[in-house]
């Protein structure tokens, strides 16, 4: 059998994006390759469970610092699985979405879709700082083009602002790498962590890198680009953006803080600042989400709020002697549950707009009466966002609460609980609209079967995956 090579995870989606340009057989290529890539990511997840040490692979046979290293460990395997699941269901959704609406954009959508998939896989596998820069650039540019896909003025303006900010962030990130390279002359993360243990200069490089990653993952002061960008594009695109594209920068930030940088006092204060930003993001994001009148902007602001959770966790690592695996588990599960739930909600909002032709919440069709599967999708993914039990979101919150109480961070635990209450405040209007039997809400226009099923399965998976979190997190626990 051909030996398992991490390169397949990157090359396969790339080739899929090229072949999907051949117009006659586009849909079959899309279906075939998305299934294939999904199976590949599941295999790589299972691979991390089987083999205990993380799998390193030097591209071209050149060991670092010369060559680029790919690393598949528990955490990256887990995220590859997440990407695989969300992308597969978004692909199924888009197959029927683009032959019903936005036919013209459908031609190029698949190229961007598979290219995004390749970029995400490349990001979570890569272990080399400059390679992460190029992968980040791939993600941002694809995201910008996806935002501009519908073509009307609001989308173009949102994507332009998004593009400017992401180019600025990339340049800052590159500046950070240049400073690190000037001091330590090394680009691979594992070598860097060995070199960093004695000296102090990395603080300077850390500043631009943290700002860059904060901008890219829409942490509070830099979150203004996200709501217009994620709400003005087509449903499958905003599902991909909100659930997958803004997670890698947060993941990289956490990995840098935990694995590469040594544990020292000055970093602790900076991590406190990050967690304050995270807490503010939760409150302000939820506050705006509750006030939104259209469903997509509500979901976009809810993404800003949910991203706040990820940054609260950073200072936890610096207190006490807890293992970094515990923090990574809580982080990974929060990302996983938010990704699936948010993707399912965006797809359902796509169904709502397809039926009602309007984005406002008050015009959202009463799904509870007319379209049961979309209703179940919204119902289960809403429960996951709130963090009701049995859902992965609940287990993530539980793990985080347990950690914060063990370390005496009662404030953080309190914020997390308050956050889930706020989440129920902005999920509730969606449920209420689904149920209301106001005469304007009855649409008998059927939604294509595939669109409903994929949204429902994503939501149901997000909800029921709480039961198998023990199995899911095994890889990470091993480190």
């Amino acid at each position, binding site marked *: 059998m051909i030996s398992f090579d991490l390169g397949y995870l990157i090359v396969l989606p790339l080739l899929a994006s090229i072949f999907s340009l051949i117009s006659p057989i586009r849909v079959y290529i899309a279906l075939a390759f998305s299934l294939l890539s999904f199976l590949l990511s599941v295999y790589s997840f299972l691979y991390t469970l089987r083999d205990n040490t993380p799998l390193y692979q030097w591209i071209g046979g050149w060991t670092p610092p010369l060559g680029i290293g790919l690393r598949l460990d528990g955490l990256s395997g887990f995220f590859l699985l997440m990407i695989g699941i969300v992308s597969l269901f978004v692909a199924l959704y888009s197959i029927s979405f683009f032959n019903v609406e936005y036919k013209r954009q459908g031609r190029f959508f698949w190229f961007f879709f598979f290219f995004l998939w390749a970029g995400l896989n490349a990001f979570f596998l890569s272990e080399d700082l400059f390679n992460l820069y*190029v992968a980040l650039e791939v993600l941002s*540019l694809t995201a910008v083009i996806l935002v501009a896909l519908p073509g009307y003025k609001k989308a173009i303006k949102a994507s*332009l602002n998004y*593009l400017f900010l992401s180019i600025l962030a990339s340049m800052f990130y590159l*500046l950070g790498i240049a400073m690190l390279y000037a001091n330590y002359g090394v680009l691979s993360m594992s070598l860097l962590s060995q070199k960093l243990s004695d000296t102090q200069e990395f603080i300077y490089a850390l500043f631009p890198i943290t700002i860059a990653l904060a901008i890219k993952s829409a942490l509070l002061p830099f979150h203004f680009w996200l709501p217009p960008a994620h709400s003005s594009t087509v449903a499958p695109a905003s599902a991909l953006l909100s659930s997958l594209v803004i997670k890698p920068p947060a993941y990289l930030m956490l990995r840098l803080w935990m694995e590469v940088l040594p544990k020292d006092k000055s970093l602790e204060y900076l991590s406190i600042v990050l967690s304050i930003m995270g807490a503010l993001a939760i409150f302000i994001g939820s506050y705006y989400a509750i006030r939104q009148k259209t469903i997509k902007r509500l979901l976009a602001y809810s993404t800003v709020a949910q991203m706040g959770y990820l940054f609260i966790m950073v200072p936890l690592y610096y207190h006490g002697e807890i293992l970094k695996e515990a923090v990574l588990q809580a982080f990974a599960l929060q990302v996983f549950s938010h990704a699936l739930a948010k993707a399912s909600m965006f797809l359902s909002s796509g169904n709502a707009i397809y039926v009602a032709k309007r984005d406002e919440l008050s015009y959202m069709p009463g799904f509870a009466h007319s379209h049961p599967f979309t209703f179940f999708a919204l119902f289960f993914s809403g429960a996951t966002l709130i963090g009701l039990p049995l859902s992965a979101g609940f287990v993530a919150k539980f793990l985080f609460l347990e950690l914060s109480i063990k370390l005496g961070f009662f404030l953080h635990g309190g914020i997390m609980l308050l956050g889930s209450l706020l989440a129920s405040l902005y999920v509730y209007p969606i449920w209420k609209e689904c149920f209301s039997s106001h005469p304007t809400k009855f649409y008998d226009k059927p939604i294509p079967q595939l669109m409903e099923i994929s949204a429902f399965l994503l939501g149901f998976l997000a909800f029921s995956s709480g039961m198998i979190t023990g199995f899911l997190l095994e890889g990470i626990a091993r480190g």
Partner: protein
Amino acid sequence: MIWFYYILAILLVIISLYHFIVARNYVKRLIALNILGSGVFLFFITTAKNTNTESPDPVPHALVLTGIVVAVSATAIAVSLILHLNKEEE
């Protein structure tokens, strides 16, 4: 002489950052971003020169090459978006 280029790079980054935040129209912001990029690349290339081997370190050169190409692609997309916006306004 190395320190002169380092300072030059930093100054380029600083003024372009200032003008990026201050500028209101899209073209000026695009130019500011490109100059910021050139500043960062200058920083990289000066680090390449800052070695004790007689010919400079080729790795930053390759990185900057990739960086420039990526920056050009991003600018191309930005230009097309701005043109789309100007077309809409007329």
